[in-house]
């Protein structure tokens, strides 16, 4: 038993906070790509484009069915051996790619459920006024599905923020990697990782707060 080295922790905090932007960068970029990919796959799953549907289902099944860590290793260490043009892929890019593919598979399922949750009569009404399927999706169905799916999608974003820590295993010096290096010099592992945990915790609490505000806002929308 030894005392917690609070001074060390306070000294470490600003250093590690400097890595927060990289963490958020990976999560935000990953989320943006994942949203687009997920929406496309969700729409495909609903309208079922022959042949493409098989690939989308395989994709979703694979990326939900295997651990993110395994997927990251596959991209970062495995793919360059198979595809020579990928030899220059860096850890940050590989992480964003992995996060995008992994989370898009989960998000596609939530968005699909939200799309199917929009009352069928509105689909018919959209078609009856002469809209194409694409117009119906873009103008009527997806905006409503987005409202339903938004809180769940924020959950995935929170999960994604935490999952950026896996970039450390690809040699990226992000929050986790930086803490690891600091701790290796000071041997104060507990303190270092406690600071890291606290930083993640605060980020997630802030996001959860935003999520609750968003839900209140969405519940009020379209009720006037």
């Amino acid at each position, binding site marked *: 038993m030894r005392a917690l080295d609070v001074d060390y922790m306070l000294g470490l905090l600003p250093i590690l906070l400097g890595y927060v932007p990289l963490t958020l960068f990976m999560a935000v970029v990953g989320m943006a790509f994942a949203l687009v990919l997920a929406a496309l796959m969700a729409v495909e799953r609903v309208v079922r484009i022959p042949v493409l549907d098989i690939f989308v289902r395989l994709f979703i099944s694979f990326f939900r069915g295997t651990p993110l860590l395994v997927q990251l290793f596959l991209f970062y260490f495995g793919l360059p051996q198979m595809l020579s043009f990928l030899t220059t892929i860096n850890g940050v890019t590989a992480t964003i790619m992995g996060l995008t593919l992994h989370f898009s598979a989960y998000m596609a399922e939530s968005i699909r459920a939200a799309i199917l949750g929009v*009352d069928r*009569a*509105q689909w*018919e*009404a*959209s*078609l*009856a*006024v*002469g*809209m*194409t399927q694409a*117009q119906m999706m873009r*103008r*009527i169905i997806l*905006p*409503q599905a987005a*409202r339903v799916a938004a809180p769940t999608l924020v959950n995935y974003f929170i999960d994604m923020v935490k999952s950026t820590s896996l970039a450390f295993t690809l040699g990226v010096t992000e929050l986790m990697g930086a803490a690891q290096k600091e701790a290796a010099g000071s041997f104060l592992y507990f303190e270092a990782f406690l600071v890291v945990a606290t930083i993640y915790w605060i980020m997630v609490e802030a996001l959860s707060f935003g999520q609750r505000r968003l839900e209140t806002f969405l519940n009020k929308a*379209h*009720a*006037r």
Partner: protein
Amino acid sequence: MISVQNLNKSFGATPVLQDISLDIQPGERVVVIGPSGTGKSTLLRCLNFLDTPDSGKITIGDLSVDAAHASRADILGLRRRTGFVFQNYALFANKTARQNITEALVTVKGMSRADADARADTILRETGLEARADAYPASLSGGQQQRVGIGRAMALDAELLLFDEPTSALDPEWVGEVLDLMRKLAESRQTMLIVTHEMQFAREIADRILFMDDGRIAEEGPPADLLDTPRDPRTRAFLRRVG
């Protein structure tokens, strides 16, 4: 001129529409009555391909569609020549009353925002909804929602308006205002095909009433003939039941 020739539709092995033929003149107001489950909704829904007919020919104005070989363009063409009023209103929940009316004008007809809004102003006035223009469907009464539904269909200047039991889902207190609006439309000689159980209303506004039974038009005629001196025993039995 609207013409339906030998329209057939089955759901699985169950025939629902059997060889329906029907002509509607411009400005004509035709009411369809009949027991539930006889294919009245399916008939309306086949005309704009919300249900896909198996065979037959549908002509609306300058567009003739062979139902068995309808292209995507044919289907859009039929939908753009018809307006549909749903029993459950089916308003766009993410759009205000005004936006429900302007949506297709902008998205489908390619009208400018300003022109669509001007058109919406006229429609909102005609439907008595000016005061609720910026309300979302969730905050409108059933009667107001259905008036928006009718306004949305009116805005498109369709050659034919289809009404599928527009007052059946309404609380009794809202039926009158919806029928009043439809009466106004009928007086303006809008071509209409209306499925309804409101017999008094049918008698007032219809040029012709069709009685459907078991997927066929069993009898048709002017309201006075069909309602007061029906020839077909099935029509008589139905009218006795609905009083």
